[in-house]
């Protein structure tokens, strides 16, 4: 019966997330001109990464071992991953809510801490950069041979890595508030992850690769899934190891967020 309780709790959390999205989108579209500008700005992420890669491959032979269309897909996967993080958890908004005590009322609701943190302060316009990146991926897949098995493995790795990355950002945001009473640290960490993850981690050397795998785990949602997608890594054990590491990272940061929050004191109200 414990499993049934966990399932019920998960369903309730999903419903809470769904309701929060409904209200977030309704609030976002109240001011239509502003929402259009924000959606346009969010698309600029996709435009910048595509423009950079296109220029690099127009003026040079690009990055060794990666074709133009493979790079477009990697950059778009990175944009989707980072945009998903921003969509679910905005460090600036969350720290602001913690500083002025607005989060206190949210925390009194009968849902888990992480469910509440992810449901109240995301950056909704990021949906446009996600959707534009999906279009780029769909376009690029015409020029890249991908097997069904690698595609399924890619999806599994991407989702596991994304959960780990989101939990990491939640943990870092709360840590940023606890230590510095500011969101700048967490915000800039996400920006760095976004800048680096659109390119193969191998270009940053062994140390850089480790940084973006273990310390800033965005590689789990971008580079490693892309390697599997393009059959650069085919060993099932390697895929399983990556999945396991993503799951472990997600659990560690999930628990870490709860542990950090025990020391939370309201900033106001």
């Amino acid at each position, binding site marked *: 019966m414990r499993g049934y309780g966990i399932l019920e709790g998960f369903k309730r959390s999903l419903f809470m997330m769904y309701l929060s999205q409904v209200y977030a989108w309704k609030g976002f579209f109240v*001011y239509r*001109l*502003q929402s259009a*500008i*924000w959606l*346009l*700005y969010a698309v*600029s992420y996709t*435009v*910048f990464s595509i*423009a*950079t890669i296109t*220029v*690099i491959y*127009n*003026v*040079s*032979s*690009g*990055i*060794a071992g990666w074709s133009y269309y493979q790079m477009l897909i990697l950059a778009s996967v990175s944009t989707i991953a980072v945009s998903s993080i921003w969509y679910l958890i905005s460090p600036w908004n969350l720290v602001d809510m913690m500083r002025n005590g607005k989060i206190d009322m949210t925390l009194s609701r009968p849902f888990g801490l992480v469910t509440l943190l992810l449901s109240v302060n995301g950056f909704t*316009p990021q949906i446009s950069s996600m959707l534009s990146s999906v279009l780029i991926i769909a376009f690029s897949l015409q020029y890249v041979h991908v097997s069904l098995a690698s595609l399924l493995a890619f999806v599994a790795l991407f989702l596991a890595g994304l959960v780990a990355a989101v939990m990491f950002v939640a943990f870092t945001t709360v840590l940023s508030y606890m230590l*510095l*009473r*500011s969101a*700048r*640290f967490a915000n*800039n*960490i996400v*920006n*760095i992850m976004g*800048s*680096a993850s659109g*390119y*193969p981690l191998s*270009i*940053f*050397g062994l140390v*850089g690769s480790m940084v973006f795998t273990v310390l800033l785990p965005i590689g789990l949602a971008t580079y490693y899934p892309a390697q599997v997608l393009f059959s650069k890594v085919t060993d099932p054990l390697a895929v399983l190891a990556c999945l396991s590491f993503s799951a472990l990272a997600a659990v560690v940061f999930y628990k870490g967020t709860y542990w950090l929050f025990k020391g939370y004191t309201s900033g106001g109200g």
Partner: protein
Amino acid sequence: MPASSFEKYYAMALFGLKNELYYKMDFLIFLVTRLASSLIMVAIWAAVYASSHSATILGYRAPEIYAYFFLVSAITSVGWPETGDNMVQDIQGGMITSYLARPLSYPVHLLFETAPDLFFTALFLSLPLSLIAVYYWSIPLTVQSVLVFFVGLCMAVALTNAIGFVIGILALKMTNLYGVLNLAFAMLMFFGGGIVPLNMLPSWSAPIVSALPFQAVLYTPVSVLIGTMSVQAAVSNMAVGLAWLAAIFVASMAMWKAARGNISTAGG
């Protein structure tokens, strides 16, 4: 004895400086992350040059491209439209009514409030990034190139804050302008050569890029400093930027004069 105008604005500047110094760690984090972002661009282009069959790409040697992105980061560190940011907060928080009741010019007050932050950032962020670029990659300097770079840096500050002021005036009509501010900064980055050097863009974009002011404050001064553009060409490009700056300044003053009398706020 009543304080002179300068003493009043100086007090504002000191207040702005103290505000910035409250969160010292924030500044250090900003410095580290700017450095990290620049190093990421260096790593990307190092990989491009490593797989290239030529030592130069469109006239850029590898050290010049690395220095390019460090210098771009140095200028864009002070390129955020702070005046627009502050103005939006003042209008939406209702504090603008109290500022307008004081014997101070609000635009001048904004300038003095923003200046310490810009000076601090230029001294502790832009200067180190520029020195790293120049000395680590042995960029030969001339008096003219340094002067053009410095003028470009000042124009970047003036242009982005003038645009920020215009955007700030829109806060009287719109509730959330951070999207507009971010979009303005994104345009600076893209059309100013902050993403890739402008001569790497396709030829059809050249007339658009030349007509806009952004290349004058970013791509041009950086290119002159690293030696990929002549001073004469730079002066011609920067004249376009100056013309834009003058036009935006005149327009912003006219807009402020028209808007000032219609300000009503819900906060304060």
